[in-house]
């Protein structure tokens, strides 16, 4: 294997170049994507604006045609011209005719578009008006009406208003001319129908078909060297219709561009000076131009969000690329390091192969073992079930023993004592002795029962094993025994004890029984007791030594049997249960207990406790 050529840590520039290229690529892609989105949004807005402008221009042109058509139909229907002719040429005396004319003028169908209707004579004088008594809004109206009569044609007079105070209006001027066969036509007068744009036209212009904060339609016309805004403005409500004019030189205004013949999509600043996108259209057969516009800000708002998103994603990608490049660099470094250790690796590989073969072999063995283990486990589980049943029975028995058996004994003892107490003076010494024996017997019986119970319960204590410091357990035990220790002036010494898994209360009981015995079975010397522990294979070997009366070798086993006593109760009281309980506790901890002693030379009790918890789970 060749040695590694170059340390890549020294040559990061290739990776830096790679990173820069990738970052540039991501940036370019993001920019292109954003531009595409921008174009798309622009096209979409243009389409929308175009559609709105086209629709509105068409409808406004249609509205104009409708007005002319209405005028024609008034002339064609014979009532109005005939009635006017008869009434006016008849010297204005025919009152019913006049009333009929007024009724026609007041017809509700006119109210949608027309605010006032006048009948003028051929000189332009008002003959009849609806509402009654009103006059044409301004002098221009009269002039336009006379022009219509002169020209003999229906004229839709454009927006006009004599002064700023009068609301703008349009006039539909219908010439009334009587034409009879064989006679030259006679000019009767003019029907002037004043159109109030606020009734239909303005609301219609203002309506915007899509939800928009800034969308607005403007109706404008050229007025000399300026453009005049004809309708009410969405963004400047305080400015009356027709009052806004802007010079034609201000070509950033879409409205100016419209009256100068511009068509289609333009961008510029509107009357507020705000950047807008607008579509311009001429309204056919009219001096009017339509501007449908929307603020650029509104159009671009979603794009700004998109831009932020594109920028974030781009930044994230560049960051990830940087991380990837760094990882790549480190990988190269590691590869370099690996190359340096190739030989060792090779050796390791061979060792691994060998190991794998051995593992396979062992696995086969283990599988067989596991199978065996399963079978054993099943048998064990069955025995444990059986055991927990008998434990439950034992607990039940223990309860009965502690309560039901105690009660009659207590009765006997209590009443015998009551007897002694009440009749003390009447009883002789014999009677008092008998009573004493009876009470003592009962008391001992109760003691035996409770000891037996304690012994039985050691085996079925459900307490868990826990790691405990034996020094602490011993300290508690010595505290319990303090009165006894002080009474007999016992000298106690100890080694440092280990921490091991044990059942805390049971271990304490074990130490207490052993130390208690060591104190109890003392001779005339001062009792000296030593507690020690040392490791012994997998166990700890504990010992409790004393300098007491000692035990003859033939009793070494018997002392651990329940209720087995070596001495009279008078000399050493007790039921003979203490060591039996010790044995049970040690066995419960999977250890052994024994004694070594010479009669008269003290005794040492030994017991072992395993150092690990294995196999020490309590049976429950």
């Amino acid at each position: 294997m060749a040695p590694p050529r170059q340390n890549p840590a020294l040559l990061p520039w290739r990776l830096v170049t790679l990173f820069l290229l990738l970052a540039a690529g991501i940036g370019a892609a993001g920019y292109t994507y954003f531009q595409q989105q921008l174009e798309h949004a622009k096209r979409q807005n243009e389409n929308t604006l175009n559609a709105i402008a086209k629709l509105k221009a068409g409808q406004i042109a249609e509205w104009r045609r409708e007005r002319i058509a209405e005028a024609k139909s008034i002339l064609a229907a014979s009532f109005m011209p005939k009635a006017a002719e008869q009434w006016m040429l008849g010297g204005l005396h025919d009152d019913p005719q006049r009333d009929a004319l007024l009724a026609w003028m007041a017809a509700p169908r006119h109210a949608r578009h027309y605010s006032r209707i006048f009948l003028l004579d051929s000189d332009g004088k008002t003959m009849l008006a609806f509402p009654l008594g009103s006059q044409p809004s301004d002098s221009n109206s009269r002039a336009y009406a006379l022009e219509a009569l002169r020209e003999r044609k229906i004229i839709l007079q454009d927006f006009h208003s004599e002064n700023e105070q009068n609301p703008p209006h349009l006039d539909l001027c219908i010439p009334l001319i009587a034409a009879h066969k064989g006679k030259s036509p006679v000019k009767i007068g003019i029907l002037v129908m004043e159109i109030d744009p606020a009734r239909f036209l303005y609301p219609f212009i203002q309506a915007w078909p899509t939800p928009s904060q800034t969308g607005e339609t403007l109706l404008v016309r050229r007025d000399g060297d300026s453009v005049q805004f004809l309708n009410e403005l969405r963004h400047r409500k305080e400015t009356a219709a027709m009052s806004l004019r802007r010079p034609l030189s201000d070509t950033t205004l879409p409205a100016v561009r419209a009256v100068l013949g511009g068509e289609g999509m333009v961008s510029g600043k509107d009357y507020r000076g705000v950047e807008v996108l607008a579509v311009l259209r001429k309204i056919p057969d009219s001096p009017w131009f339509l501007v449908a516009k929307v603020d650029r800000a509104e159009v671009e708002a979603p794009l700004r969000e998109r831009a932020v998103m594109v920028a974030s994603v781009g930044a994230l990608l560049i960051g990830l690329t940087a991380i990837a490049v760094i990882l790549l660099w480190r990988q190269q470094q590691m590869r370099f390091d690996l190359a340096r250790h190739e030989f060792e690796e090779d050796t390791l590989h061979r060792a691994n192969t060998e190991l794998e073969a051995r593992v396979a072999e062992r696995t086969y063995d283990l599988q067989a073992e596991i199978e065996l283990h399963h079978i054993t486990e099943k048998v064990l589980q069955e025995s444990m079930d059986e055991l927990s049943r008998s434990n439950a029975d034992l607990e039940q028995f223990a309860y009965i023993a502690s309560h039901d058996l105690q009660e009659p004994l207590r009765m006997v003892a209590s009443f015998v004592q009551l007897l002694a107490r009440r009749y003390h003076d009447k009883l002789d010494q014999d009677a008092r002795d008998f009573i004493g024996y009876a009470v003592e017997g009962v008391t001992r019986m109760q003691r035996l029962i409770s000891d037996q119970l304690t012994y039985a319960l050691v085996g079925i204590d459900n307490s868990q094993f826990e790691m405990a410091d034996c020094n602490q357990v011993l300290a508690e035990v010595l505290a319990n025994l303090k009165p006894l220790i002080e009474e007999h002036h016992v000298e106690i010494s100890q080694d440092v004890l280990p921490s091991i898994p044990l059942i805390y209360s049971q271990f304490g009981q074990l130490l207490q029984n052993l130390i208690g015995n060591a104190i109890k079975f003392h001779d005339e010397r001062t009792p000296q007791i030593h507690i020690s522990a040392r490791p012994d294979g997998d166990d700890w070997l504990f010992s409790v030594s004393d300098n007491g009366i000692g035990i003859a070798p033939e009793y070494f086993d018997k002392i651990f049997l329940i209720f087995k006593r070596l001495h009279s109760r008078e000399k050493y009281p007790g039921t003979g249960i203490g060591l039996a309980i010790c044995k049970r506790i040690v066995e419960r901890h999977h250890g052994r207990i024994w004694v070594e002693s010479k009669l008269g030379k003290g005794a040492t009790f030994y017991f072992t406790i395993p150092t690990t918890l294995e196999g020490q789970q309590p049976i429950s």
Partner: protein
Amino acid sequence: MSHDQLIHAVDILLVEDNPGDVRLTREAMKEARIAVNLNVANDGLEAMKMLRQEAPYGNLPLPDLVLLDLNMPKMDGREVLRQIKFDDRLKHIPVVILTTSAAEKDIAQAYGMHANCYITKPVELEEFMEIVKSIEGFWLTVVKLPRNPSQ
């Protein structure tokens, strides 16, 4: 003992199935020279009838203290305790468990059901006498108890 409490004898309900224990308790009270009005229920059912003043115990006053054995026929002391402590009219009455059992389980269960104290009957007559005396000394003189609504 305050003057107030001297005026009327205290009412104690002893719930105990063993006639021997009943007698022993009476003797102990006699020796202690405490003026008590001791009523005895021989099992849990009878105890509940007396406490709820059901026939034929309509005229029985509510006791100031209940001494309750645990192991009894018919209804045992645990059930009597539960019914007393879940009865709004009775739960204020102190209940002293007086039993032979020293089992951890019984002690924990009794306090869990709001027993006011738990005493294991001692073997020694002398001790038993002392305990009866101290029960009365504590619950009937030291402790301030709520007034029974029926009195």
